[in-house]
């Protein structure tokens, strides 16, 4: 086999399941967009149906094509797989083929998407077709170069990856949009980075092959801060649970707040542009926002839209908190952790607490970001004026209570979304991942269905008649799953009976409280009581929380 083909075969055999799923999704989108009247869809729906899954697919592709999924970015060592470094190939070839495969596949993926999906959807502009394609391949090429190159200091790679990739993409865009530079020149600026990235990668890999890696050290702590004692350092933990909480927090707790901070650093300066986007109207000239939101100022909408970031990302971060520190799928939980003398219930409870800490820290970051925006954004007076207008339109009691509940509810909902996905991170089974993907696909399909229904008033009555039955069926299924999980929890004595009783009582209290608040806040004609009750029962997780205990128990005692 030729080396060029061998590299392609290597990528395919290692990631064939993921690549097949991506290809299947691509095909599905091509079929749907060329058979459904996508061009008539509201712009608000497209990001949900296409945007988020596509972003996930491109993120996945960039990850696997960087040929460094197993690399530890914070280490100084090269992330280029050691088994490849000893192949009897010259470095230019060893680096060139995987890079060429990567950028070719990524460019092909984007061009298929843009020509097969965006054009039928009515987006047919050269800048939107070619510029993103070039940006994607430049991102990948730099990522490969930086992951494959050894660094003299641990952690240095992390400081360089973000700014370098960000600058390589943002600078050409700024030149294009702000300074009106010719498109051809911008394309040239992007394209010239490819050979630069290749040379960097080749230089790095050749050093890694020779073992020629400088070994520097970060400046040490001042002597008076340095740890001098060995075992007596740090106060002992007051309990095993507290030690475990420290372990979980250090392992993955601050990833969510850090992501939130990074997101806001990038997005806060762009609030004015987002605000303009919210003032867009749909193809028929009607506003794209629902009536409830039309009275809110665009700046506020943009800010609140950004504030929902933790809510959107909570599930993914919950997966990470739930993920067990194991070696691979056959040994998902490390024997070190599995043999700690702590109950499975306590291990799960600590993960719930880590999620709570992570949620609070993220919302704390978010609060700081908002304060920063008010202080530096130059829009504080304008926004406060529009807030006053909004406040005066509503009775003070429901307004303030509603606002407080919205904030508290968002925090609680963020936590709930984190903990409800813990089990999926813990279970580490292929069928569970597939099930989650199908669930996500169903969610996307449901949004598409909702959009179709909104445009088909002749079916509204039929749907309204069916809705309570569908909801009742879903509640019955949920009840069955909850009963089954409770039965196993009791049979295996995983959770004390008293704790189970408390959990059920808290769930009922939460559901009752939520019902009371919604009944008080929502207009009487908005939803039937039965629909409200069924909706609340479906919204509040129970079975998925119970699954967390079962999943951990399953992997701890296989």
């Amino acid at each position, binding site marked *: 086999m030729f080396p060029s083909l061998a590299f392609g075969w290597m990528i395919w055999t290692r990631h064939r399941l993921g690549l097949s799923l991506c290809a299947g999704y691509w095909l599905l989108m091509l079929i749907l967009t060329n058979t459904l009247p996508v061009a008539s869809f509201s712009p608000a729906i497209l990001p949900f149906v296409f945007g988020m899954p596509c972003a996930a697919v491109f993120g996945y592709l960039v990850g696997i094509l960087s040929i460094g999924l197993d690399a530890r970015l914070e280490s100084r060592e090269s992330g280029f797989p050691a088994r490849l470094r000893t192949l009897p190939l010259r470095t230019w070839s060893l680096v060139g083929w995987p890079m060429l495969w990567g950028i070719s596949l990524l460019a092909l993926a984007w061009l298929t998407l843009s020509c097969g999906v965006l054009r039928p959807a009515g987006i047919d502009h050269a800048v939107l077709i070619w510029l993103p394609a070039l940006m994607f391949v430049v991102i990948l090429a730099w990522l490969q170069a930086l992951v494959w190159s050894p660094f003299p200091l641990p952690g240095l790679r992390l400081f360089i990856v973000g700014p370098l990739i960000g600058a390589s993409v943002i600078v050409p865009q700024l030149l294009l949009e702000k300074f009106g530079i010719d498109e051809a020149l911008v394309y040239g600026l992007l394209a010239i980075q490819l050979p630069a990235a290749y040379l960097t990668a080749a230089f790095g890999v050749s050093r890694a092959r020779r073992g020629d890696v400088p070994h520097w050290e970060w400046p040490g702590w001042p002597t008076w801060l340095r*740890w001098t*004692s*060995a*075992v*007596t*350092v*740090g106060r*002992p*933990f007051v*309990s*095993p649970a*507290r*030690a475990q909480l*420290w*372990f979980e927090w*250090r*392992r993955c707790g601050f990833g969510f707040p850090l992501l939130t901070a990074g997101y806001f650093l990038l997005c806060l300066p762009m609030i004015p542009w987002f605000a303009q986007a919210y003032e867009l109207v749909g193809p028929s000239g009607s506003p794209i926002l629902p009536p409830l939101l039309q009275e809110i100022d665009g700046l506020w909408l943009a800010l609140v839209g950004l504030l929902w970031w933790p809510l959107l990302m909570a599930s993914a971060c919950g997966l990470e908190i739930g993920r067990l*520190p*194991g*070696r691979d799928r056959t*040994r998902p939980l*490390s*024997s*070190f952790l*599995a*043999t*700690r*003398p*702590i*109950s*499975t219930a306590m291990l799960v409870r600590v993960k719930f607490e880590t999620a709570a800490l992570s949620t609070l820290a993220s919302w704390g970051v978010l609060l700081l970001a908002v304060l920063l925006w008010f202080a530096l954004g130059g829009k504080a007076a304008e926004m406060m004026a529009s807030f006053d207008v909004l406040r005066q339109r509503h009775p003070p009691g429901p307004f303030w209570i509603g606002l407080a509940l919205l904030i508290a509810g968002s925090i609680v909902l963020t936590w709930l979304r984190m903990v409800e996905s813990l089990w999926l991170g813990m279970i580490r089974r292929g069928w569970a991942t597939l099930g989650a993907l199908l669930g996500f696909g169903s969610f996307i399909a449901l949004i598409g269905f909702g959009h179709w229904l909104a445009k088909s008033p002749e079916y509204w009555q039929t749907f309204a008649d069916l809705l309570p039955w569908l909801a009742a069926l879903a509640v019955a299924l949920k009840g069955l799953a909850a009963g089954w999980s409770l039965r196993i929890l009791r049979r*295996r*004595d995983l959770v004390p009976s008293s704790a189970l009783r408390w959990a059920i009582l808290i769930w009922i209290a939460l559901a009752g409280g939520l019902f009371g608040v919604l009944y008080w806040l929502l207009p009487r004609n908005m939803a039937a009581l039965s629909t409200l009750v069924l909706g609340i029962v479906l919204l509040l997780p129970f079975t998925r929380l119970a699954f967390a205990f079962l999943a951990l128990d399953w992997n*701890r*005692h*296989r």
Partner: protein
Amino acid sequence: MIATGSSPIVIDMQGVTRRFGATIALNNICLSVPRGCVFGLVGVNGSGKTTLIKHVLGLLRTETGSVRVFERDPVADPVNVLSRIGYLSEENDLPAWMTVAELIRYTRAFYPGWRDDYAEELRQSFGLEAGARIGTLSKGQQARAGLLVALAYRPELLVLDEPSSGLDPLVRRDILGAIVRIIADEGRTVLFSSHLLDEMERVADYVAMIDKGRIVLSAAMNDIQASHRRLTLRFEQARSQPPALAGALAWEGAGHEWTAVCHGPIDEVRAAVSASGARIVEEHGVGLDAVFVARMSRPSAMAQAE
């Protein structure tokens, strides 16, 4: 099965069978480990040693049979069982992001009997830097760190799953030293698996040999040494095949002279040799290594027929 006399049983496995798909990893295992002994598990790779140890730790749920450690089910009651066990695995999957000091601080929270002075003594004797990250330590140093946190609370039962695998002689010496320390504490028990049979021979009181999920030999080390002999036999006439000799586990040789590793009362073996028309020209005891090779190289049908 080990005859235990009056010593209480620390580990009791009865009729434990475990399958992974079509593979039978453990096949009707019955094993009792008395308190205060060093119990060695021997077997080729994939014979079921680690699976057995995982059942002891409660990391695997029994499909059939029962496992009791300190008279408790390690799956149903992990807290009370694991708090009395120190465990060092071959994988040694300590969290790479922790420093040695953090590892000590974290681990001691789980064990009320943790002794800081002993942990510090071990850390210094192992040459572990408190501020060093686990992930940056060599394999041997990581094993030492794992040993430190497995020993510092003086567990009642120390479980070592091929702890010396791939380690240099100095680290192996530390591990053996740990076993000796545990033995010095009266009433403590060690269960360890290893391929290094000379080390096992030095420290083990009992040995169980596992082959294809079955225990093919389980006895006190002294009994094993006493009941196995290597005999060199001379036949009057050259033979192309060794004779069928009761108690012979393995044969080597050709022509007039054959050497056998035999098992059983020596008088009965000698009588069988005479009956086969041969005479014994050399006879001496064998080490665990020779017994292991003799038993593991036998066809499984012969082993099961015994």
